[in-house]
């Protein structure tokens, strides 16, 4: 705040309203949709039990009930808080999470085991814990976040934190399966690139909304192409360099592709100029071709993608098995619990729970099921774009667009990888893949979207640098000087 007084009434001191001042507001659409989610998941669980054990009963009723209770709790909490936020997002994401729970209960439980208090938890139970935590995180953020200033004002701090995180992973990250993704801090291990994607969107929203007018200007001419003033292209070049660095050092094609695609999409959303996107895409492909030439691991990935059947039992094994799984599934699938005959006690696709959940779904639910899952992701994107389109100012619009696109593009990259449309990359399928980092970060994204969609959020603050013009005013008529 600058020193000058404002005619508007000062904002009343907001005391934390925990209890006593509750204005519940019904959310019928959400309640109805969650009802269908519940019924569908119960039927799915019965189908799973029929496939695995031959009995028509709930498979692992405890886990399913805990998950459905968490969703109900999220709904009730939002009703009690009286939020007017989006009512479609939670059921859609809840459905995706439920499908994930069924899938993880169905896969061999010893793929992931954790010891908690003497008892050993298998894949399904660990995933359930992360899912419930995710629901709690999303709901809490959706209810508690009433202002976006903490994101808006510290965009360079966020960017610095993101780059620091990236550097830490470069230096201290441990290599798992040829990719340097995991960062360990004592007992906590996580994949920073998951968190990084949210930080990237926050920074880009701040940067693009502030410099949008300058980026729209067309100063520099390069043949037939008109570009914004050169200094404002610097972040673009920096992003390009960072994306290539991620490929070279982290060997993470997926994250690089995701970051750069989100970046280009947001530049387009902010400026509406396709030429910037075309230039960016050309730069990226030129850089990728160069990197593929120089680094054998990238070259290898692309070779596998072009012809996995060249080495079906070695390098191409995963993708060949994935294609077989889709083929076995056919139109309506083999039914939950009836696909994936194991090879020597293991599922045929290595890392099916993190990298290939779509292939598992494709086998057991068929083309019909895969299209339904992809449809759910499209709904998530649509909601984000809608929230962005009705946002009060550019920062929120770009932020909501970016958050939705991060999920959508990531889902597309890994789905395309499983189907051999794109080279296979190690990103997760949001809300469905096993993994704590992925689920929690995507829950943060959903929570922020819920908060941004609320029609009662604090209005955006006035832009900076508003008062400098005052000193330069000259009265139009001499007499009016006295009036001031």
């Amino acid at each position, binding site marked *: 705040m600058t020193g000058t007084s404002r*005619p*508007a009434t000062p904002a009343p001191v907001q005391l934390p309203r925990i209890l006593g001042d509750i204005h519940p507001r019904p959310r019928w*659409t959400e309640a109805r*949709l969650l009802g*269908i*989610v519940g019924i*569908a998941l119960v*039927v*799915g669980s019965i*189908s799973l039990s*029929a*496939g695995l054990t*031959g009995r*028509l009963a709930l498979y692992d009723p405890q886990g399913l009930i805990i998950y459905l209770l968490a969703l109900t709790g999220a709904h009730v909490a939002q009703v009690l808080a009286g939020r007017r936020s989006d*009512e*479609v997002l939670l*059921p*859609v994401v809840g*459905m995706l999470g439920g499908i994930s729970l069924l899938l993880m209960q169905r896969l061999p439980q010893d793929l992931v085991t954790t010891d908690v208090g003497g008892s050993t938890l298998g894949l399904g139970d660990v995933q359930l814990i992360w899912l419930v935590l995710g629901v709690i995180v999303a709901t809490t953020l959706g209810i508690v976040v009433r202002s976006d200033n903490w994101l808006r004002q510290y965009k360079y701090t966020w960017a610095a934190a993101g780059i620091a995180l990236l550097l830490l992973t470069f230096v201290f990250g441990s290599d798992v399966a040829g990719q340097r993704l995991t960062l360990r801090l004592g007992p906590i291990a996580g994949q920073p690139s998951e968190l990084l994607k949210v930080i990237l969107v926050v920074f880009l929203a701040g940067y693009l*909304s502030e410099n*949008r*007018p300058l980026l*729209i200007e067309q100063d520099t001419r390069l043949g037939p192409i008109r570009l914004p003033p050169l200094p404002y292209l610097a972040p673009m070049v920096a992003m390009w360099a960072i994306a290539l660095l991620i490929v070279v050092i982290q060997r993470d094609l997926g994250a690089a592709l995701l970051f750069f695609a989100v970046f280009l999409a947001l530049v387009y959303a902010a400026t*509406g100029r396709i030429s910037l996107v075309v230039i960016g895409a050309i730069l990226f492909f030129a850089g990728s071709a160069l990197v593929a030439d120089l680094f054998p691991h990238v070259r290898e990935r692309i070779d596998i993608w072009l012809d996995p059947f060249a080495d079906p039992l070695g390098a191409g094994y995963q993708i060949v098995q994935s294609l077989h799984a889709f083929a076995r599934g056919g139109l*309506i*699938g083999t*039914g939950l619990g009836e696909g994936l005959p194991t090879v020597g006690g293991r599922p045929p696709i290595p890392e099916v729970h993190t990298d290939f959940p779509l292939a598992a779904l494709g086998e057991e639910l*068929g083309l019909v*099921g895969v299209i*339904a899952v992809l*449809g*759910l992701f499209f*709904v998530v994107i649509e*909601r984000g774009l*809608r929230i962005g*389109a*009705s*946002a*009060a*100012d*550019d920062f929120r*619009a770009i932020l909501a667009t970016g958050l939705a696109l991060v999920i959508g593009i990531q889902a597309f990259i890994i789905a395309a990888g499983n189907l051999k449309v794109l080279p296979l990359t190690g990103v997760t399928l949001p809300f469905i893949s096993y993994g704590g980092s992925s689920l929690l970060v995507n829950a943060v994204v959903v929570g922020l979207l819920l908060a941004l969609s609320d*029609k009662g959020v604090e209005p955006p603050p*006035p*832009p*900076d*640098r*508003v*008062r*400098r*013009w*005052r000193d*330069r*005013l*000259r*009265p*139009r*008529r001499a007499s009016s000087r006295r*009036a*001031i």
Partner: protein
Amino acid sequence: MDGPLVMVWVVRLLFLALLYLFLARVVRSLLRDLRAAARERGATLGRLIVVESPGGDPEAGRSFDLDAITTLGRDVNNAIVVEDPFASFDHAVLTYRGRSWYVEDLGSTNGTYVNGRPIASVAPLGFGDELSIGQVRMRLERARSA
């Protein structure tokens, strides 16, 4: 064909059917939402909210719905009359071209400011930006939705 096997098939197909029922309900609610938004919008491309106005005309907090060409100034023929001693009679014009707003200064004495910076002639104006004419500060915002 024995009974249990038929039941297994029924349950399998029912699960897929429920997935699509859910999708259909979601899409229906999205369409309803989009139609409501389409009805409500169309009329305005944005609005200008008066943030500060020492003269009281227009009063602070007032919101103007904008046409594709909206003129501002002290002259009563302007779409938005800014009754401020530091404003010119024909001060500035807001235009909506392509997909964004632009503000053009019409040779005013005191100039037009976007976020506190004087504009040369035409400048793009983003949603959330502040426009200053004389001592009156206004903020461009999206048309209200739902």
